[in-house]
């Protein structure tokens, strides 16, 4: 079976689930020949160079990545042509006959969104999902300090950042994937997501709410820690309709070093 055959099966399965393949999408082949015979599939949060090495070692020559391979949303390589890091990565891909396909827009179109569901599962929140409001989790009352400590422990994060009074009471949590950190509103105590600008959003809202005596919080997991586990859900979604190909979720992992 070729990489192209596998993408065809993915498109067919999406169709059966009521999701039409988009004309405009970043979900395309990013490297390698689509007609390459696939020995194994690795799903992952981001096709970093380190991830590609581990996929190759594990005998997975088809990498299905949620985020870009070449450092920008549309994987434009203009300006990278003679960059030694880019050249080394491309050489490694060529030498190991790796094919890379991005699965972003259509992954987020699945219901529930596997990128949110995967994080919720890792965080132990699945059972607390609101039956009516997507992305809302209603946890037994705790504090922001205790919640943040639990999140760091479960995700093994090295760069998780928190905004808000550590002693504030927390129950209603909105969980978003990647750059989609849910906006804080009156009905949400804490917003949890990947990355977001400090300007023009929740960080300023938390500060202004605090200045008015209202307690709000935000936990930024980092983009990768907020979506990496979702690609495990995608691996589980692929297996039933690709029974003849080995499929493994390989974690991209925390990109940041410990800075303490």
């Amino acid at each position, binding site marked *: 079976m070729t990489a192209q055959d596998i993408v065809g099966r993915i498109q067919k399965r999406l169709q059966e689930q009521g999701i039409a393949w988009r004309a405009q999408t970043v979900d395309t082949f990013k490297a390698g020949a689509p007609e390459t015979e696939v020995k194994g599939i690795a799903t992952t949060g*981001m096709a*970093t*160079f*380190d991830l590609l*090495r581990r996929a190759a070692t594990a005998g997975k020559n088809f990498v299905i990545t949620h*985020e*870009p391979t070449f*450092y*920008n*949303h549309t994987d434009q390589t203009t*300006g*990278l042509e003679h*960059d*030694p*890091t880019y050249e*080394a*990565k491309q050489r490694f891909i060529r030498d190991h006959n790796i094919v890379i396909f991005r699965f972003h827009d259509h992954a987020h179109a699945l219901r529930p969104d596997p990128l949110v569901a995967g994080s919720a599962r890792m965080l132990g929140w699945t059972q607390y999902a609101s039956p009516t409001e997507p992305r809302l989790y209603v946890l037994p009352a705790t504090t922001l300090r205790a919640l*943040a*400590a639990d999140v*760091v422990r479960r995700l093994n994060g090295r*760069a*998780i*950042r*928190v*905004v808000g009074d*550590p002693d504030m009471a927390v129950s209603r949590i909105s969980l978003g994937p990647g750059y989609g950190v849910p*906006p804080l*509103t*009156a009905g949400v105590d804490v917003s949890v997501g*990947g*990355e977001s*600008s*400090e*300007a*023009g*959003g*929740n*960080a*300023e*809202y*938390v*500060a*202004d*709410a605090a*200045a*008015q005596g*209202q307690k*709000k919080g935000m936990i*930024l997991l*980092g*983009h*990768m820690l907020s979506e990496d586990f979702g690609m495990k859900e995608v691996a589980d979604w692929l297996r039933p309709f690709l029974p003849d190909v080995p499929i493994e979720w390989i974690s991209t992992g925390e*990109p*940041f*070093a410990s*800075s*303490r």
Partner: protein
Amino acid sequence: MLGSAGTLLSTGRARAQQGDLTAQRVVDRIRANAGVPWRDTTVDGFKAGDPATVVTGVATTVMATLDVLRRAVAARQNLVITQEPTFYSANDDPGNRAADPVYRAKKAFIDEQRLVVWRFADHWNARQPNESATALAAALGWTRNRLPDSEQVYQLPQTTLGALITHVRTKLGLQGGLRTIGKPDMRVRTVFINTGSTAVASTVLNLRRADVVLTGEPREWEAVPYVLDTWSADLGKGLIAVGRNVSETPGMQACATWIRSFVPEVPVVHIATADPYWSVGS
């Protein structure tokens, strides 16, 4: 409360007289002194208040939080010049938050105190050499270390990434907002400074000569994986991210000094915002 604010505005303020220093006049002087062409499409402009307000003092800040606005009022600075948005969105449109109590209370405070908020980002960042990077370098004690043929690359006495991180953390008063990539024992001679976010193209270009990029909030699908990949290519580069507020704070302090040079009539001060983050165990 919101309803009465309009009445206060129309009755409580003396009309600006010929020659009075209005917020509009301060902005006109900024435009005249900026030394860069004024753009047709820009986020820079009045975000709240009446440009005809007579200015009693000017405060610059990275972000006009409610706390900053209160400190400005307490010191009679009624023109607040902010680099970042005031109303929780890139274009300051409150959108879905128009009825939100936090937004409404902030807006009501601005109206009641007759503050004027003006945003200064695009044109401040367009000045050459980059004011924000120059000021951050000065805050780190590197003013004399800039490479003459480069705008934002600084050459330091040889150090390690670990020692550099400690220096940056201490000098900038970082709490939980510090994030890094690279090995602590990595040798460092040159640092590329880019405040705010970091475009991947300039990161790639400048890391050809710099060992480390020092930035605010690098995009985690752009500069972050690029720097991570340099380690897999045996070219190991370092990244130090200090957060947007912290990275831009020395710049807005320098902005106050700059405005003071052509607005001598009233006090011009900087109001600092701190690292907003904490982390578990810090």
